[in-house]
């Protein structure tokens, strides 16, 4: 066993986590990309993506999860998500209005439809996912500091 297997929860939890965590991440991405045609969207999908990393952190300990997404990366993606959202809204000025849906709308209920809505969903999911993960990391780090 490698060193990382000594931390975190029991072998059963780790095995289940290893099998499911990718699926959870994939499901989050699915929810985001289908946000404009089915229930869900950027916020829900972002939460699910954040939960997949939180899941990893609970099962394997914080080092393993922070190696995948560090704290600075989380806060970077959070700012990028917010900036992207604002940028999409500003690009509406090309058609004359703030927040105008300036892209072609496409055929309803198809994946490539609804203009800027899927792009907004992706920006929101970045913001929400990274933000939620950053909050969780902050809580974990605070806890460890007080234990010392």
């Amino acid at each position: 066993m490698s060193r990382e297997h000594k931390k975190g929860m029991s072998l059963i939890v780790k095995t289940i986590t290893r099998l499911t965590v990718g699926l959870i991440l994939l499901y989050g991405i699915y929810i985001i990309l289908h946000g404009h045609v089915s229930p869900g969207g950027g916020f829900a999908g972002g939460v699910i993506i954040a939960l997949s990393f939180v899941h990893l952190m609970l099962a394997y300990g914080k080092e393993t999860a922070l190696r995948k997404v560090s704290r600075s990366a989380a806060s970077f993606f959070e700012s990028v998500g917010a900036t992207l959202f604002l940028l999409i809204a500003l690009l509406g000025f090309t058609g004359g209005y703030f927040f105008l849906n300036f892209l072609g709308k496409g055929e309803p209920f198809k994946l490539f439809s609804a203009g800027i809505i899927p792009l907004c969903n992706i920006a929101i999911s970045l913001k929400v996912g990274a933000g939620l993960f950053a909050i969780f990391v902050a809580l974990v780090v605070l806890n460890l500091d007080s234990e010392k």
Partner: protein
Amino acid sequence: MTGAVNIIPFFVVIPLAGAFLTALLAKKIKWLPDIIGSVTTLALLAISILSIFKVNAYGALVYSVGGWKLPIGIAMVLDGFSSFVLVTVNLIAFIVGIYAVNYMERFTSKWKFYTLFLLMLAGMNGVVITGDLFNLFVFLEIASVASYALVAFGTEKHELEAAFKYAAMSTVGSLFVLLGIAFLYSFTSTLNMADMARVLTQKGANNITVMVSVLFIMGFGLKAALVPFHAWLPDAHPSAPAPISAMLSGVLIKSLGIYALCRIIYNVIGITAPVASALLVLGTLSMVVGVFLAIGQWDLKRLLAYHSISQIGYVILGIALGTPLGIFGGLFHLFNHSVFKSLLFLNSGAVEYSTGTRDLKKMGGLMGKMPVTGGTNLVASMSIAGIPPFNGFWSKLIIIIAAVQAGKPWFAFWAVLASLLTLASFTKVMKYAFFGTLKEKWNKVKEVPVFMKVSMLALALICVIGGALLISGVNEGFLGSASNVLIEGTGYAKVILGSVK
């Protein structure tokens, strides 16, 4: 006309972009947060002053976000009242931003301060500029949540406690507002404020509007710190860093509390006699209770916080009189209070910056060592106490005359009494902090750095020349057009809906 409308979304876009860019780029680069903060607030001040001229030229301007026309989409509305509050907010924000360049050196991670500061500014501008009731709630929450974090910025024990108390109480206030919005939405089936005013006028007087008025008075009254709902303010405002105290006391309680309350009560629901008298009583109560609580304080910032409650009482008293002169005086006092209360908080921050204490008993004779701080504090003290010719005198005079003219001499009496007690309280501040003999331990005290001095002097200048806003010609365009919006009441619906078609 089309060009004029396009400035409206930028009141929200500029501070949001500034906040996100600060969070994205300015972590490593030390000088960048200051630059972004100053440039964004300067740009906001410029477009808000521009907005006054646009409103005077074209009347009320309506912006349809995303190209969705009223009443379907979210509308942003710029009229006299909003441009008046926007100028107040962004003027104070710009000056406070300059002050913070030096003051916030004491704290770690300046970029976090500027991010939260700009987010709070975006929320306040959003509340003022929006024409949609639910959108107003969203911006209200952005500004509130950012301000909770800013109150706790020093992360000392008492700051965290104050922030928690503020967060808990303010959330209750937000819930009342949300409940009021939910009732109005279920009653009128629309969220646009102009459309809602139209539907409410059609349906006539109803019990639900009374209920909703009470909910809004509680919710926004809590944000504005009217007296029965004021308990969070004396903890929260002193705990924040001085620039934020100035923002909170100077403009946050006004844009989130008074602006939103007046906009909804006057323009959407329509003022009725019982609501007006409730506001009159609440205003007078805040005015008197606030000043009585202030007089016994020895913590400089806490004393100022209690005076904020008292001065908010004046504003509400003036506006609730309902006469054109009363509304005019109330709004003028809103502007004046923003200026001199921000200045007083910046002065208290300067004293704390140099001496490290806020206790009046430990200060003394600082006038000789800190002439700029002492001098500007004297100007601001005389303004808030209502000494002629400073700006506070004129607005208080107008409110008192309006109360007498409206046949309510008792309210005028309380206003005069509160003004005298304010004078007494600030005589105490000047005597203990700046005059008297210099204590030995303050021999090495130095005046504050240059940016702090510049911003305090700028605010003091506005205090001195503030009365000039009454000169005819200046008056109609700025204060007059703001009070006209409130005087026309639910006629707001016709103006806004008419300007879209």
